[in-house]
């Protein structure tokens, strides 16, 4: 595992919304291209904050982040996006006043060429969205919106996709479908970093998982480990301290 360059490395990450109040404390994690890594944890554990900081949407106090071996700590979101990171926020993740096609055009805003071709490709991945490019995003159902949000993020052929609670507020059936789609995207060669609260379902699809509690990384392991460890819920309560293995030193280039 240590021989390859990870897609993303996060080292000693600390920060939060306001000066002096850290939401995240010294979190380290990494992600390889052939992985689905899921961050789970109770409400307010700092999962979304971490994800936002990773894509450059939030400034952070200390630590650094590397993308494909390059230090990208100070990069703005558009720059991260341009270099191959897709990001789907949890809420407000589509342009509601715009059509499906326009949403995708915006997703591909940085593309110099092949915009129309990529739109067709992306639409082919999501049959729900195909055939009605002029439909306004505000008319879509929750599941369809989530699909559109992901389709938008895929417009630039990212190598890594950051998803913030993609299955929140979806019906169980829609959740299953969406996770399967995420898996399909992953199989096309995209590393997935996802934050989830519906942990059990997400873990089924995950290669690895990180448990965050109160801004700390409490536990890390394979998706299967997490599922089979007697009770993941107990880890949420902080009993897992020290149990997981850490790999902060691993994978440096």
């Amino acid at each position, binding site marked *: 595992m240590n021989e390859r360059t990870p897609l993303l490395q996060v080292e000693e990450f600390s920060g*939060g*919304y*306001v*000066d*002096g*109040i850290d*939401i995240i*404390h010294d979190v380290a994690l990494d992600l390889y291209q052939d992985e689905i890594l899921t961050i789970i944890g109770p409400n307010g554990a700092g999962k979304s904050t971490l994800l936002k900081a990773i894509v450059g949407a939030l400034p952070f106090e200390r630590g650094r982040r590397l993308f494909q071996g390059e230090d990208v700590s100070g990069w703005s979101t558009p720059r991260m996006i341009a270099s191959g990171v897709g990001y789907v926020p949890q809420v407000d993740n589509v342009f509601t006043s715009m059509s499906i096609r326009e949403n995708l055009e915006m997703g591909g805003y940085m593309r110099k060429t092949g915009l129309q071709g990529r739109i067709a490709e992306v639409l082919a991945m999501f049959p729900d969205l195909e055939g009605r490019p002029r439909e306004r995003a505000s008319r879509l159902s929750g599941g369809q919106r989530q699909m559109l949000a992901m389709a938008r993020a895929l417009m630039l052929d990212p190598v890594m996709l950051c998803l913030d609670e993609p299955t929140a507020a979806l019906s169980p059936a829609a959740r299953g479908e969406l996770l399967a789609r995420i898996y399909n995207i992953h199989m096309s060669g995209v590393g997935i970093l996802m934050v989830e609260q519906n942990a059990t379902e997400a873990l089924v699809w995950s290669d690895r998982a990180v448990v965050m509690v109160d801004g700390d990384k409490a536990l890390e392991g394979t998706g299967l480990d997490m599922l089979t460890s007697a009770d993941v819920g107990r880890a949420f309560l902080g009993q897992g301290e020290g149990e997981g293995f850490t790999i902060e030193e691993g994978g440096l280039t």
Partner: protein
Amino acid sequence: MEQLIVTLVTFDGAVNWTVGFLTTVSIFAILALALNIQWSVGILNFGVAAFFMVGAYVSAVLTLPAPEGLESYVAGWGIPIPVGWLFAMVAGAVLAVLLGIPTLRLRDDFLAIATIGVAAILRSIANSVEGLVNRSRGLNGIDGFLEQEVSGGGYRWVELAIALVILCAVYWLVTQATASPWGRALRAIRDNEDTAKASGKNTVRFRMGAFILGSMLMGLAGAIYAHRSGTISPLTFSDLLGTFFVWTMLIVGGSGNHRGVVVGALVVGFFWFGTPLIQESLPDWLGSRVFQVRQLLIGLLIVAFLLWRPQGLLAERDRVSRFVTVGPENRSTERGSLWRRLRERAATQLPRS
């Protein structure tokens, strides 16, 4: 305001100017306090001039004697002046209700537009409808309160006393109001409307209450102004003097904080009304343009304070109830107190366990 240009060469002149200045500033301080009440619940009133004007006109026409000769205005019943003041407050409140009903439920910005609009329309009505308030000729000969009883030059002291007493009363009232549970609810609404809604408060009703209270006080200020200056015309209540000037006082003094607002009124008022005093001694090229420069500086003051000292000269003290924890997300970043920021900065220097 030109009437304030009094030579300061003599001691008497200086005293007279100071008395007149303080009287005017007291009236504007009342306006600013009233505006502060509204601002503190997130009501953006860009039509202070309208409420000011309504109060002035209502009290004036009610207390004036019946019109004679070329004069033409309604009422003219010659009622006692304090009763006129009461009616001025009622008029302010009525205007607030009329404006608030269609707009308070909607986006914040609509009220701002509606208030700016109502100031413009009231001015144009006053200017153009015959037989209402004497059109652009204005109303003249409005008696001052107790003016008949006090003879000679001493009356300006009485005017000052009246303005100061009412200012103190208004100050006391708004302080009481904001310290009450009602005031706490108002602040909660301003800082986070959604949270306040979630905790079961009817925000529209609270905001309407604050809007009405503020507008009543503005009406009162208008009435005092009318009786003090003795003559009013639509031009008196320009957007610049009646609205933006008051806003500058609020921003400079420290929004959300009553003491700061009064200080702001004093500082900005001195700047504004003091300018004519130095006009004579300025070189010609500047002296002839001093009023435009003054207007420029007022605008500059607003922008500069917003940029570099958003909390104003006197910062609002952190008075959120101790039982409410203010999360980082719902904190109002634009008006945080200096002290709180210092504390937070200090916290970052501490070693972390």
